[in-house]
């Protein structure tokens, strides 16, 4: 059963006649990893924005658990149902790794008594130590920052993990480590992992690959 379904989803910018995405029909299920491939300008990031509720589709609909996403409180959707991971990590650099994870829990209004303990546990699950967790973000390497971003996205235990070029800034070895984490999340924690990528290596490791092509339709 699909957790996320795209039905004839099309998207175009308000001031543009040309569609960025046209009639997209994808199904995403829990327990699987998905790679969305495509060349630059094919609409990969736009699709991710639609899936994360940062943008609304121009036509068609996106269903989360068979419910139209447009009827959701999208802020709540983003801090409850999906975890977003970016290529540039998008962590608050003035905070430590642990504080970044705790902030996400706060936004999710978690009543956890010991949020710090939970944050450390999450960081450990993605391969970071407590000591690293107490460091400011800029004191961490790119791979470590991406692990923090993953830990942050897991802080409220979402069903779906959306990752936009998560290994784009990382070396091959680190890329493999991060992909291993995604694999674990999907197959052992039953999450739906959707990765937008142009890396063949990443796509190869996904259970399902969707390829976006540039649309020429007006």
């Amino acid at each position, binding site marked *: 059963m699909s957790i996320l379904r795209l039905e004839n989803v099309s998207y175009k910018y308000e001031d543009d006649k040309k569609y960025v995405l046209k009639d997209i029909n994808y199904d995403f299920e829990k327990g699987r990893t998905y790679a969305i491939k495509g060349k630059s300008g094919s609409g990969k990031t736009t699709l991710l924005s639609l899936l994360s509720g940062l943008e609304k589709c121009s036509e068609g609909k996106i269903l989360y658990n068979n419910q139209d996403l447009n009827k959701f409180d999208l802020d709540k959707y983003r801090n409850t149902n999906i975890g*977003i991971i970016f290529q540039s990590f998008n962590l608050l650099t003035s905070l430590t790794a642990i504080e970044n994870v705790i902030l996400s829990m706060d*936004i999710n209004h978690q009543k956890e008594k010991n949020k710090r303990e939970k944050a450390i546990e999450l960081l450990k699950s993605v391969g970071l130590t407590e000591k690293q967790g107490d460091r400011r973000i800029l004191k961490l390497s790119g791979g470590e920052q991406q692990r923090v971003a993953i830990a942050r996205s897991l802080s409220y235990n979402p069903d779906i993990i959306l990752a936009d070029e998560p290994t784009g800034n990382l070396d091959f070895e680190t890329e493999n480590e991060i992909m291993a984490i995604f694999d674990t999340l999907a197959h052992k924690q039953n999450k739906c992992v959707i990765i937008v990528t142009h890396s063949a290596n990443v796509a190869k490791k996904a259970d399902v690959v969707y390829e976006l092509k540039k649309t020429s339709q007006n």
Partner: protein
Amino acid sequence: MYILKNAFRSINRSKGRNILIGIIITVIACSATIGLSIMNAASKVIESSKSKYDITATIGIDRDKMMKNVDSSSESKENMKERFNSMASISVSDIESYGDSKYVSSYYYTYSVGLNSDTIDAAETQSKGPGGNPHGQSSTSFTLTGYSSYEAMEEFITGAYTITEGEISSNFSDNSCIINSELATLNNLTVGDTIVLTNPNDTSKTYELIISGIYSDNDTDTMNMFTNSVNTIITNSNFVEQIVSDDATLNAKITPTFILTSEDVVDSFEQELYDKGLDETYSVNTNLDQLSSETESIQNLATFAFTTLIIILVIGGIILFIINLINVRERKYEIGVLRTIGMKKTSVISQFVSELLIVSVISLILGGFIGSMLSVPTANKLLEQEIQSSEQAQANINEHFGRSMNGADENSKQEKPSNMPTKGVSKIEKVTSIDAAIDIKVLSELIGIGILLTLVSSLAACISISRFSPLTILKERS
């Protein structure tokens, strides 16, 4: 709760920016406290001044109106003079009728008549009595002034006259009197002696008065050997009324004073007097100008404080608005991240407003404290300058009247800057210091200003945050 926690953390992170905002708000709060304290104290002083002095109305001949009538009329000057002399003067019954008004809380009057005496000598000076002899009577040596009540005895109330021997009779219908100490010395009179005054029109008519007290005139500002009041004998108005009723041709002058219920009823009272038959050539004069002259310096100070306060608030508000705008632009990335991970716009705005509010509250307390320390000396310094300026203006007026040439020394001018011959002005003390203390009113106004400033400057953050698209921010960053 986490919003507040984040706000504190963010303040701690951006110390430089928040210290700058804090300094600006402290300066604004300090200036606002000084301004508000001065305005508040000034308003209290003005209110207190209004309650301290009664609003009084007197009736006098409007000479300007009379002269205009003469100029526009074809009547000969002789006829006009005759008409002026025969103009009906105000009677005691008129005063009683005028005083019977809802606008009047009480009234009193003085009744003066010019008389002579064969038993005592008058000092050789011009009497302050009714003046002249408009009815063509013989000139008089003494002025017998009768007061209707203690209230009417302004000179004793203000301290211009003081009893040195005996007392003023409490019986306002007997034939007791008090005389000037100089007149007593001149005629070797003492308390208990009897003096006899004569009618200037009919010397067979005499009036006996028993001296119950002797008073001294403290007005030393005179060119004469004797004080102006030396030939003034003071008694009660009933006694004078009896003399005048016995001989209507006597040159008598009645001066009523009505104490009004408030300054708002002045016009209504004036209209009522004319409706009751007061001649158009009389005008109703009040002491409102004199009262406002007392608080003029304070009023100017309050206006200055208000204007300065407004300027500081406007400039401070603009500076804070710009700083916040820059702050939001600098923190666009943070806003983008927070929005992307699901923080609501309202929560982001709340955090930014909380940060400013925390800094504002601390700065307001600091500024309010400094302002309260500075408000009293600042207010008094400003008032001192205002009074000096006012005194200089008064000194210039004195000079115009030739006071600097008539022997009054510089010291006396300094002590009595407003001692011009305008009746009443010198009786009202000018305010020379101000107690610009902080009270609940000032405190609440300060808090109001603080909240207003915070809201105005937060407006920049609110507008910017509500217009930012998180995706656009993060794309720009990438």
